[in-house]
């Protein structure tokens, strides 16, 4: 009887040698004449243990990691096919504290199944949501999503159901579902993990959206920095179509929905929804002025649902288990769960899906295990390169859209990048402006010119030239960008800049007591 072994095929696991590990296991098993069945799963999201290999035993899946090819022979000697003890063994995967404390709704299958196996997907509740949606009237599906309290997981947190309703209510011969998979924010990787680890979940969410609003064509816009995710999605779409889950009659319901996977081309701005539409239409990714809303006039001028990967991938569980099940997680107006991504200077980096309301301290210390360097954590940037730097004094605020907004920060896409006390915050503020110079689409002046001036002013502050006057100038410039930019690129670049200045004035050469 062959032993089933799981070796992740996730980009991050591959980036640490998972392919060589899989080869070594296959080789060692052949040499010893042992039958093994190697499944290439997604990542469980415990990246400090990757490559994390699991062995299926009568006691459940036993975890070994971080494993390198040269460890494989010793593991066979130790009897790892029977789940034996070893210095790399972490016992049953499900009982590793990092994983045991999570509330995985969107990520329920990621790392568990073979990403491209439709049988696996169906055996783990896949397409239950779509089947239920098919049996419902489109307006009821929209209502279910509205009632779940799901808000846009890409960062803007707009209620998903309301967006869907606008598209549903706008008559048109052709409507679209456009999935924003241009996950360009530093510190975020949940979209990538899901696309590589459970692509049918995204396909199912898009099909539900299509049936709900009356769209027959979907596009997934994947960034070119994600070659593995792109290939996995292409393969998954082909298989789903061949099995009748996509195409002229979705699951035999008589209504059509199909998906085309498109590749971006290294422009951060194309993560902005209207810029993404321009890019899908084959143009420069220049931001559009709103109105009209894309829900009324979007892709090729037609009503378009634009949702982030995480929003769409949360839809199947909402339809399968009902709006109330999802809404019971979270607090206030932030309902459900968010897959937080722990990155940067942490011992335990990875994916933590938790209900809203968890604090940064819990994530950084309980899950993250403190800094990787062993030095004190000084700050964390939450919500990507346009998110604020949160100082340690605010680590106990509950992660909730409203509470974060109230302190001038944002939850965004749930990316968290931790920094130890060696970080120079003036340099990070300059980096934020320089990034905006590099990535601005150039349409509006506050963003295009403001970011260039921002770098210059910060350089003068760092050099100590007329510090007081230049700080006033920087704050005024930030106000202009915040209020006058067309989209979040220029409009939110001030978040990291001003939070750095406010909480860490000493790094800008300012007396802390004088700055506030």
């Amino acid at each position, binding site marked *: 009887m062959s032993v089933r072994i799981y070796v992740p095929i996730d*980009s991050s696991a591959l980036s640490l040698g998972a392919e060589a590990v899989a080869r070594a296991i296959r080789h060692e098993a052949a040499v010893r004449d042992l039958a093994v069945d190697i499944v290439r799963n997604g990542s469980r999201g415990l990246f400090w243990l990757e490559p994390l290999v699991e062995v299926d035993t009568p006691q459940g899946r036993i975890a070994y990691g971080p494993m390198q090819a040269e460890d494989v022979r010793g593991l066979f000697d130790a009897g790892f096919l029977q789940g034996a003890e070893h210095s790399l063994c972490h016992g049953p995967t499900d009982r590793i504290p990092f994983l045991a404390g999570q509330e995985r709704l969107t990520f329920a299958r990621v790392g568990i199944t073979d990403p491209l196996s439709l049988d696996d997907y169906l055996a783990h509740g896949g397409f239950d949501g779509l089947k239920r949606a098919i049996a419902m009237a489109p307006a009821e599906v929209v209502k279910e999503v509205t009632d779940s309290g799901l808000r846009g997981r890409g960062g803007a947190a707009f209620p998903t159901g309301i967006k869907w309703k606008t598209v549903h209510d706008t008559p048109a011969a052709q409507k679209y579902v456009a999935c924003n998979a241009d996950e360009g924010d530093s510190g975020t990787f949940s979209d990538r993990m899901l696309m590589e680890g459970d692509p049918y979940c995204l396909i199912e969410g898009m099909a539900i959206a299509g049936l709900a609003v009356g769209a027959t064509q979907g596009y997934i816009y994947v960034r070119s920095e994600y070659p593995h995710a792109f290939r996995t999605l292409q393969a998954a779409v082909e298989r789903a179509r061949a099995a009748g889950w996509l195409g002229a009659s979705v699951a035999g319901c008589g209504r059509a929905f199909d998906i085309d996977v498109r590749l971006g081309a290294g422009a951060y701005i194309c993560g902005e929804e209207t810029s993404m539409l321009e890019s899908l239409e084959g143009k420069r990714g220049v931001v559009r002025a709103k109105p009209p809303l894309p829900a009324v006039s979007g892709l090729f001028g037609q009503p378009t649902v634009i949702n982030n990967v995480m929003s769409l991938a949360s839809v199947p569980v909402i339809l399968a288990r009902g709006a109330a099940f999802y809404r019971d997680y979270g607090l206030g107006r932030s309902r459900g769960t968010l897959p937080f991504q722990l990155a*940067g200077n942490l011992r335990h*980096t990875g994916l933590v899906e938790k209900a809203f309301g968890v604090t940064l301290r819990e994530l950084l210390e309980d899950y993250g295990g403190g800094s990787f360097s062993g030095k004190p954590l000084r700050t964390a940037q939450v919500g990507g390169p346009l998110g604020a730097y949160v100082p340690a004094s605010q680590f106990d605020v509950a992660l909730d859209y409203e509470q974060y907004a109230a302190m001038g920060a944002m939850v965004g896409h749930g990316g968290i990048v931790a920094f130890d006390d060696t970080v120079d915050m003036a340099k990070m503020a300059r980096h934020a402006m320089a990034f905006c110079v590099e990535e601005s689409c150039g349409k509006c002046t506050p963003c295009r010119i403001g970011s260039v001036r921002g770098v210059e002013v910060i350089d003068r502050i760092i050099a100590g030239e007329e510090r007081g006057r230049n700080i006033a100038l920087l704050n005024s410039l930030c106000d202009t960008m915040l209020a006058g930019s067309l989209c979040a690129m220029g409009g939110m670049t001030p978040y990291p800049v001003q939070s750095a200045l406010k909480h860490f004035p000493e790094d800008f050469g300012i007396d802390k007591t004088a700055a506030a």
Partner: protein
Amino acid sequence: MTKETPSAAGLAALIDARRELPGATLPMLHAIQDAYGYVPDEALPMIASALNLSRAEVQGVVSFYHHFRRTPPGRHIVQVCRAESCLAMGAEELEAQVKAKLGVDFHQTTTDGAVTLEPVYCLGNCACSPAMRVDDDILGRMNGRRFDTVLHALRQTEGASA
């Protein structure tokens, strides 16, 4: 990764196969760059004519996106991530080491034509920072020593295929 030399027939075939796609410009440009390593000048009027656009419009699209190259790159592309998570884990030191080892700055190619070095903002490998990409392989927890091993392996495959 030796690429073919662009030919009018080859370009026409790549363009024709995609002319019916809605929003075909990016798919065409990707197909061309995948085949030749860059987007040659002669491709622009051909795309423009296939999509009923002006040549300036196509030029505008190509120049907007960081991904598209207008000149042939080295045989391998090495990217070093400069985004926040990698910065928190020593990306600046890695960048300096990589530049020194290759003897080139960003957007330059080594004299033997083997490697083109480029910056990148985030590879989605933030839990394993600092990250790099070599052709289509993403690499995590990089340092100068690990880069030496990668570079050595690259040069060996080059030696084997030459």
